[in-house]
């Protein structure tokens, strides 16, 4: 029984990494006030280019670098339109998602079902020997450990550094931040680009570790789930981790139930739960007064910045 539980937990963590990485990037972007619906496209780009670079060179760092670059390029397009041209963020994000999907479908056709670089599970010395916890957290692919490190890093950046203060100010009240001398456009652009890098990493995780391999449309909506998770986490990185684990847990449970032939809850209910739960949190946040402050969106999220 414990072995089963541990296995499910391990799969849960494994399934949560992509959403967590993409979600961290989106948190940065949204805290600065930019809504990026193009996660799906950036993740796919990261998945394909990471896989291709890995297969071509065999060097994991080049692969990850290529993945991040692909994400950054697509994010740059979004930043150009949304920050530069003050265009509508929803439309631009959708366009990026479509573009990423189309480009990778096109370029990826030569890579389908090809073997490539595989970044498999890597046991952390010592830590992985811890009973239960060690198996769950420290027997994961390398990018999971990157996610473990990036999570507190993003937290620290947002809450303790001057850059983080700038980001938060720009996202809450761009006019006030501008009056205080913060470079609003630059901050937003950098945050969007960072989001792209994170999404690229998330995609690379899928194609190099999780699946692995390249398949057209392999992210299967995880980009949008990441965005929903950011809302579920009310823009706080630690809560995002909780949301990602929840999503991963539900995925693991689905898999487990199918394999074990259990029938505790209809599969479709499990699959639907992440979305319904997110909606429930959104409602609760708006309806319950005390939670309102915790759950409030960055004040200027979605509003383009014009200097008056």
């Amino acid at each position: 029984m414990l072995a089963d539980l541990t296995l499910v937990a391990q799969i849960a963590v494994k399934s949560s990494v992509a959403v967590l990485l993409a979600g961290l990037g989106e948190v940065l972007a949204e805290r600065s006030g930019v809504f990026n619906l193009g996660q799906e496209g950036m993740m796919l780009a990261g998945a394909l280019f990471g896989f291709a670079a890995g297969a071509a060179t065999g060097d994991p760092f080049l692969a990850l670098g290529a993945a991040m670059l692909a994400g950054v390029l697509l994010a740059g397009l979004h930043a150009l339109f949304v920050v530069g041209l003050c265009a509508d963020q929803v439309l631009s994000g959708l366009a990026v998602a479509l573009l990423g999907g189309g480009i990778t479908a096109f370029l990826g056709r030569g890579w389908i079902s090809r073997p490539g670089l595989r970044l498999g599970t890597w046991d952390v010395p010592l830590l992985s020997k811890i009973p239960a916890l060690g198996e769950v957290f420290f027997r994961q692919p390398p990018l999971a450990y990157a996610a473990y490190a990036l999570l507190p890093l993003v937290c620290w950046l947002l809450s303790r550094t001057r850059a983080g203060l700038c980001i938060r100010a720009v996202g809450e009240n761009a006019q006030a931040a501008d009056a205080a001398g913060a470079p609003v456009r630059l901050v937003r652009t950098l945050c969007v680009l960072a989001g792209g890098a994170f999404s690229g990493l998330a995609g690379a995780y899928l194609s190099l570790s999780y699946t692995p391999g390249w398949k057209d449309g392999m992210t299967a909506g995880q980009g949008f789930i990441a965005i929903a998770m950011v809302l579920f986490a009310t823009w706080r990185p630690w809560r995002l981790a909780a949301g990602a684990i929840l999503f991963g847990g539900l995925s693991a449970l689905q898999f487990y139930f199918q394999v074990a032939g259990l029938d505790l809850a209809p599969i479709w209910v499990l699959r639907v739960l992440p979305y319904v739960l997110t909606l429930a949190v959104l409602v609760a946040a708006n309806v319950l007064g005390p939670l309102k402050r915790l759950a409030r969106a960055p004040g200027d999220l979605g509003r383009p910045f014009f200097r008056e």
Partner: protein
Amino acid sequence: MIRLVPRHGGAVRSGLWGLGLALCLALVSGAAAFALLGADWVQAYAAMAAGALGSAQGRMDVLIKAAPLIFTGLAVALCCRLKAWNIGAEGQFVFGAVGVALAGLRLFPGGGAWLLPACLAGGAALGALWAAIPALLKTRCGVNEILSTLLLNYVAVIFMEHLYFGPWRDPAGFGFPGTAELPEAAWLPLWPGTRLHLGLALALACAVLLWLALERTRFGFQCRVLGQNPEAARYAGFNVDRLTLTAFLFSGALAGLAGACEVLGVQHRLQEGLASGVGFDGVIVAFLARLHPLGVPAAALFLAAILVGGDQLQTALGLPGAVVRILEAALLFGVLAGDWLAARRLVVTRAEAGHAG
């Protein structure tokens, strides 16, 4: 020195300018994308044109594909008039299909002359209900409708899959997941000798009706005011919440009709591949049409031609059909860039010596 300066001109003129620029930019960037990715863009465009317009079969496919696009385009355009987003057309489409299956397979399997209208009504009703959820969440709880409609898309698709994999599965289906076929009494009549179903005519009728409603009725008038100027709407005493809910209900009904017609006219059952991005396509159609109901059919036909032509790329040049998404993205970016350019005019000035002190 050449600068771009914001223009304070007529909205319509800049709208048409924007559209023209959008199309040009889209075609150019599409060609560039093709070229960069190693395909011959001339050949690619030629293959698409031939596939979509070159044969009777192709033209028929374009018309058939345009019908759901008109419906979803209208659905998105209606909500955007109130400056609200309905990105949930996908989910409402799905529930429209589910509504048809509910009426045709479960509630009234007997058939009869009124089965078709009942199915259509069921599809529209369920689509409307599915849109009512994000609308109520928005008006009562202040939940952002972009996210609620997006999330509900996934819920709808998963639910439908559950239905045709599970309780509504056709026992005689030979292992393919899907519902049983709907009784023929429920099928949309076809234009004699073709595969073109009545859905297209319904869609065109809805476009005209929506235009009339927006232009002539009090509902349309109030939508106009609310979308342009919420302060004036409040001053005039409009019930903003009720207006928003009504708009979403109509919008959901339209998207639901899209799903209903797709099932009743083409697929005749619920099965895999039913929805496939039609919601996002609706967004593109709506913005290409500049949110004008009478422009939606034209934009829908254009996009349908691109989609059908895209299918051709597979056979003619070995390119995956999904590459058409690049063109769709280019269209959206083109609309954004075109709007931005059209709202500005070129100003040539001499280098200034500095403002008067």
